[in-house]
Each structure stands twice: as C-alpha cells, then as structure tokens.
C-alpha cells in the first residue's frame, strides 16, 4: 500500500510525535526524549501492527483530531478518553479501522493526562539523530502539532492485533514512586530521608515532559556546598534549592548541578506520565533487588504493564 498522510483537524493543547527517543547522545547534551508513557505507546503500536519504535502521537489534556488520506487502522491508549471514528463512538485501546478521508477524534481524558494515538505504518516525519520524538527541552524533532498540519504516514507494517480486551492499568489516583537511593543521598540530613519516605507530596501544575515537579515539605541538605555539574538520568529525583523533589522525565537535561537523592526505576515512570496536577505522591525507598523484581514483572505483563 502506498504511503499516506494525516491532516491535523484539531491539534489540542499539546500533541507531539513520540517514539522510543534518542538514547546514546547524552555526552553531546542531547536528552533521551521519547514517549513518557512507554507501555501505552508500545501497546498502541502493537494494536495497529507496528513495531515498538514506530512513532505515535502523544496528546496532553485535551486530545486531538486527525483525518487520514487513505484507509488505515488506528488505536488510542494511555489516558482513557472518548474515541470517535467518523463521528461514531469507537473502542479505546482497540484497533479502529477508518476509510480514506475518515476522521478520528480523541477527546479529553476522563482520567490521566496523556493519550497515545498509533496509526498503521506510524507517522514518519524526518528523524533527527535516529528518532522522531519531539524534545521540548532542546527543540529537536518535529514541532508540536498545529491545526492544519499534515504528517506523513509509513506503509503498514503488519496486521493489527485482534483482541477484545487489552489490559491496561488505570491512571493513578495516588502516585506511588519506588526510589533507589543515591547517588547523593548522603548530601541530605537523615530527617530529609525520613521525610522523603513518609511525607505526602503532590504533583505540581508546573510539571511537564521535562520533569514532574512536586509540592510538599522541603528536604533539608546536610551538605551545603555546590555540587559540580554531573550527568543526570531519566527518573532522577533531583532536589533544587527550594528542597522540593523533582522527578526527571524523558526530556530532562543531560547534566545538572543539584544533588540527586534517588532514582525512580523506568518501570515507575509511566504512572508519573499520567499523574495530573494535584495527585498525591508518595516516594517509597526500595532495594535494588526489589526494583529488579518489579521491572521483570512489568516486562512480563500482558499488554500494558506497569
């Protein structure tokens, strides 16, 4: 089948193209980027027969509406939202077939924050350093969608997945983040470590693809000198001068000058991607052994593991 295109009828508040990101260039100052809710991105691709690295649309808060130039199969995952195909209600987290010229409308999420829209063949704007992800920190990759844009779509790669029910975890009503302490937990007082493990935090409205910021009691430092800049990882819980922990997400900077008290394993970050501002947050210091168990369990999960 020849290549097609999507026309953006309604871009929504923030819709970006995302894939698995561009790891491997951090030494040049290039963030990893990529879909924030990776299990949702992977499931959407699986439902339409794409490989996991095909690019999807990541919507934020208000959904998106696209029209396809050719008959194509779509799937919407991530934050649950009303899906309409050709104006009629269609299934969420399931393959949806549209004829040439058909429109797919994804509404505002009923819970959670980010829905993912996959199309058979994936959207195929020009990759940058091996990825089509939009990196909002650096401005790499295709710009956020605007009304009237067109996006190229690749040739379909495989048959859609036939399933009546894809198992998906609901967006969290309370965000529980496992944390592996270090590398700089010794820069904090023992009281701060107790506070991190026991206090209630909440998701700040200043959160974005770069970081999930929190509100709550400040964490006090034991070491007051400046930290020489060091490399950051996705999932790092950095504590800036105001003492409120910040969880770094996919578009985070590659180096930083504030101490990292701990790191949330990748398997915990999909839930962070769906936590709306105001959601309660708890940090649970975890052993590396336990974190490995959680990760391997989530990798074994059916379709949409967390």
């Amino acid at each position, binding site marked *: 089948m020849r290549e097609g295109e999507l026309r953006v009828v309604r871009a929504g508040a923030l819709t970006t193209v995302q894939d698995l990101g561009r790891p491997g260039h951090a030494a040049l100052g290039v963030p990893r980027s990529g879909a924030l809710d990776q299990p949702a991105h992977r499931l959407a691709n699986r439902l339409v027969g794409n490989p996991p690295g095909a690019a999807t649309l990541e919507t934020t808060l208000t959904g998106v509406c696209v029209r396809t130039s050719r008959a194509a199969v779509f799937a919407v995952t991530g934050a649950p939202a009303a899906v309409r195909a050709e104006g009629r209600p269609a299934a969420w987290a399931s393959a949806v077939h549209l004829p040439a010229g058909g429109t797919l409308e994804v509404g505002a999420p009923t819970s959670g924050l980010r829905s993912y829209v996959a199309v058979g063949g994936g959207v195929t704007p020009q990759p940058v350093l091996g990825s089509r992800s939009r990196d909002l920190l650096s401005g790499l990759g295709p710009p956020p969608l605007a009304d009237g844009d067109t996006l190229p779509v690749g040739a379909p790669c495989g048959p859609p997945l036939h399933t009546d029910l894809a198992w998906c975890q609901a967006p969290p009503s309370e965000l529980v983040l496992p944390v592996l302490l270090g590398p700089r937990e010794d820069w904090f007082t023992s009281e701060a470590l107790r506070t991190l493990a026991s206090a209630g935090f909440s998701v700040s409205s200043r959160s974005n693809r770069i970081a999930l910021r929190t509100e709550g009691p400040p964490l006090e430092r034991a070491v007051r000198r400046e930290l020489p800049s*060091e*490399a950051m990882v996705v999932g790092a819980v950095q504590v800036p001068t105001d003492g409120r922990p910040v969880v770094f997400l996919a578009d985070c900077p590659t180096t930083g000058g504030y101490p990292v008290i701990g790191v949330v394993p990748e398997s915990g970050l999909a839930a962070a991607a769906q936590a709306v501002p105001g959601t309660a947050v708890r940090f649970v210091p975890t052993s590396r052994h336990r974190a490995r168990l959680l990760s391997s369990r989530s990798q074994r999960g059916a379709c949409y593991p967390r």
Partner: protein
Amino acid sequence: MRLLPVGENSLLVELDTAQEAQSWYVELLRSRREGSLSAVQDIVPGDRTVLLYGVSGPPSALAALRAELGHWSPPGIVADSGPLVEIPVRYDGADLGEVARIWGVTPQEVARVHSGVEHRVAFCGFAPGFAYMTGLGEEHHTPRHAAPRTSVPAGSVALAGPYTGIYPRSSPGGWQLIGATSVNLWDLEREPPALLTPGTRVRFLPCGSPASRPAGTEGRQGRGERGQP
C-alpha cells in the same frame, strides 16, 4: 575514586579533580572503542564525574564492571591530545567591562588572557552542543550573574566559574558575555552534530578590536536555576 550506583543499571565514577575526571572519560571511551564496555549504553562526563549510563545484562554485569573499574588507574591526559578546534571571537560582549573589573585588568587584557590559553571541553549539557570548557586559571574564574538574562544571542562566548561556554542558540542565560562567534556549534548535517565534544581542545582567535563597554544589566529576570548557563 568512588563508584556510586545510580538507579537500577547505571554507575557514577566520582573523582577528586576535574583533570582526573577528564582522564577517566578519555580512558573509558578508548576502552569502549576496543569493545570492552559494550554493555554500556552511554558514557557521560560531568565536572568531577563520569556516568556509565545503562549497563545492560544481569545484575552480575554491573557488579563485574564495578570490580573491573576498581583496578583502573587511567594515565593523565597528554596536554596536546584530542582534536583541536579554532574559534574566531569578537571580544565585545556586554559583560566584557564587568569581567575586566572582576579580574582587575583592562578589557583588552581579558581578550588576551582568554585567547592566550588552550581550553578543553570537559563536558556538555544545558543544550545540544553547549560545551563546558576549562582552561582559565583560578585567578580568572568568574561568578555568574545573580539573575540571568531573559535572552542571550546565539554565538555568545561567555564565562561562569571555571568555564567558558558558547550559546549554540538564543536562550536565557546567566553567564558573563565576553564576546561572540559566528561558528556553527550545532549542525545536524555534521557527524557528530556538536562541534565541541568532550575532550576537544579549543583555541579562541581574536578578530576585530575589543570594544570596552560598561557592564550590561539590561534584560535580566528573576533568579534562574543554578547550574544553568
């Protein structure tokens, strides 16, 4: 040297000095080229650290890497090793006068000192292609502005702490601007796209005559995040 675990599968090598960190980075890259660090996804230098980001394989792979690194003692960097990049600079930045005052010299002397030493890219960050270059002596370290400018033009050559940096594109910034260059620091048509990669030696070539200007205070905003240029 200390080895600090980071998350599930990364390791931070912490050294006592920036020079040691740069030697370790060079040695780690050499080792990877020879195929012995193939399990490491990314090697990312910092000021006194090198991160081994994403060690694939079972937990024993990380433990084995830790054990191996414990025996390492990389040789110091040979002064003239690493590729050399020459960057023409007009020393006429908005903060040249202020830097001259901090150093206790004339603006012309700032340009002479800055272009008279060889700099070296210690690490990158802040933006793709933004390099933190060391080379200035301790007496020429420069505090950053308490409040960053809302916009610093692309190509600005700037100082903060022990570092020289060049803004690859226009962005907010709190570093002291001493000059400007028209060299393209980030070009996706180039491999790698960054002109200044860690380990690169840099010489600044003065072009045009340095103008003396009063310290600029325009365009500043409230407190920025420390650690950002």
